[in-house]
């Protein structure tokens, strides 16, 4: 009998992964479906292109200018953006859930996305001349402030249940959204409409610049999370057990939370708040297959990419020529998932 696990030891065992066969198959299947969805997404739209044409344009560049432009300037960056944003939001949610030991934690639910949104919208309204490249930075600052606020508020309570943190987040996000709405309703109308499109979580304006920012930050942050996966596995047992298992919990906790916040903030700064992916993807990954923390992170990332790709594709083909922003669709799928988690005993005790 072959062993059901594949052991992967890297860098003098500072990263050790235990991958079961099932996980490997799942990773492969998910990557393949993402590839298919990317091709389908490039195909679909108001300008008809066949799959063959798309392959021609992508690989040998021998085609007419119109379809060339459509693929390279609009559909391809948009598709890549959707996939990257999905993966980043999913990773952010998964890390947050592991660190806070709370399976209902999601960056869009507890105000982290709203912090980014407020920072970006206020800068768009107050300093319209500011370059777009500052957005990611501002979004990160807004999000990290909110995350710190929630941590401070929920920490000082001795008997604090992990779940109280969600209620605090709901309050904070209501507060932040109100201020954002004030900016939107009463700022100058042409600036407000640009901000409004961004705020609905729409991917339609994605450019190669956005793809570069997203992939760059993903390349930096993903290894950090994988490095932290061992600490996250220990944290799952509770903080005291984690200390006993030799985890430096304060430093790892803050490192992981800042990674998670950074992922959510950068994704949000590019496409606006995409709700609930950080909740759906990690949960679905857990249901699909038992896996170690690192494998779970990878599965969540792929699932998140798949979900946002699908949401974006559905959003622009369901009621074409109008478009439903991907963020709204993920919210519509996400709420039932949240309620399902709420109804299950596990939501309270397991994490």
């Amino acid at each position, binding site marked *: 009998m072959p062993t059901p696990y594949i052991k992967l030891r890297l860098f003098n065992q500072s990263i050790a992964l235990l991958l079961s066969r099932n996980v490997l198959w799942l990773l492969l299947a998910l990557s393949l479906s993402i590839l298919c969805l990317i091709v389908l997404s490039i195909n679909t739209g108001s300008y008809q292109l066949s799959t063959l044409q798309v392959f021609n344009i992508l690989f040998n560049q021998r085609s007419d200018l119109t379809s060339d432009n459509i693929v390279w300037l609009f559909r391809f960056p948009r598709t890549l953006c959707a996939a990257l944003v999905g993966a980043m939001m999913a990773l952010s949610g998964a890390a947050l859930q592991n660190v806070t030991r709370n399976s*209902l934690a999601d960056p869009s*639910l507890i105000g982290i996305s709203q912090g980014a949104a407020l920072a970006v919208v206020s800068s768009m309204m107050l300093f319209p001349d500011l370059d777009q490249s500052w957005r990611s930075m501002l979004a990160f600052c807004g999000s990290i402030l909110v995350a710190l606020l929630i941590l401070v*508020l929920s920490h000082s*309570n001795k*008997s604090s249940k992990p*779940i*109280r943190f*969600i*209620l*605090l987040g*709901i*309050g*904070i996000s*209501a*507060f932040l*959204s*109100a*201020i954002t*709405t*004030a900016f939107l*309703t*009463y700022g100058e109308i042409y600036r407000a409409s640009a901000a409004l499109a961004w705020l*609905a979580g729409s991917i339609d304006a994605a450019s190669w610049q956005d793809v570069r920012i997203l992939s760059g930050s993903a390349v930096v942050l993903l290894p950090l999370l994988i490095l932290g996966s061992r600490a996250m596995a220990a944290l799952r047992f509770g903080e005291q057990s984690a200390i006993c298992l030799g985890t430096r919990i304060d430093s790892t906790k803050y490192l992981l939370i800042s990674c998670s916040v950074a992922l959510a903030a950068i994704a949000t700064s590019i496409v606006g708040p995409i*709700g609930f992916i950080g909740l759906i993807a990690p949960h679905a990954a857990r249901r699909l297959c038992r896996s170690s923390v690192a494998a779970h992170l990878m599965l969540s990332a792929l699932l998140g990419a798949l979900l946002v790709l699908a949401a974006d594709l559905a959003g622009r083909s369901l*009621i074409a020529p*109008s*478009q*439903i*922003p991907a963020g*709204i669709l993920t*919210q*519509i799928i*996400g*709420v*039932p998932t*949240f*309620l399902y988690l*709420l*109804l*299950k*005993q596990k939501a*309270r005790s397991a994490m």
Partner: protein
Amino acid sequence: MNSSIESVNQPYTLSYSLAAIVSVSICSMLFMLHLSVGAKPLSYAVLYQALSSFDNSNFDHMIIHNIRLPRALIAIAVGASLSVAGAIMQGVTRNPLASPSVLGLLAGASFAVVIGLGLFDITSPLYTPWIAALGAGTAATLVIVIATAAPGGATTLNLTLSGAAVSALLAALIAVMQLANEDDFDDLREWLTGSLAGNSLQSFYYIAPVMLVALVTALLVSRKITVLSMGDEIAKGLGVKTLGLKIQLMLAVIVLTACSVAMAGPVGFVGLVVPHAVRFFVGADYRWVIPFSAIIGAGFLLAVDIVARTVINPQEISTGIITAIVGAPLFIYLVKVKLR
């Protein structure tokens, strides 16, 4: 037993009645202030003339009669209704966070109004309250059913979480409706942030009597709410038919919320803030909490609306935005302090 309660309450009755008179007079001062401030400040003398001997060729009188008076009256009606609805909900569910906005009633009512307008083209103030009531009732039932089914039952936590989730879903669906036909919903954009502006007296006359009936009902059963707030078992032991009373109260809450939404859109957090402030002063006796909630709620929304209309003069902020900015910190405080 009954007489001993009366005798204990006797000294309070006097001071509470005095407090009621004081708060009513503060309310009427706010009412006058509300009418006089704005893009064009008007003196109290003009105000008095406009109210006593209305002259429809006088431009200032027209401003008061057509724009400011409806708005002030609606602020009073909406503030009182939402506060009483919140007070009832907090008493019946024994849940410090219960209020029409937190438990999804506002979102449900707004969603129903949006559907009514988008699919069936209903805009008449005669029908919107009932459509809103249908939406608020459905959303409330959904939230309660989900929270009851969740492990631990209908606790503060479960109710709040399922309320937030249902509100998020309805908000997304409203956004879809808005995107699907943008032209029709342009007018609704401001209404959806909870705005008291742009209403006529006509819709007030249609909706206010229904509100009044619900308010009086709440006042009549307020003694039983006090008993209910001690817990179901104690209430039953004291001879209250809890199920019937709860249904009656829930209907009152739904009607109050729906009428407010039909008038002013979803004005959040009023029903959370005011009852807490009131209970801080008058304690847990709902015979006092309900009427004071109505008075203070009316005054609170008048004051908030004065701020909303003057803070970035000559533009106006939606009242709902200000109530959320005031109310959300209180929500956070309550989660931190009251929730064990």
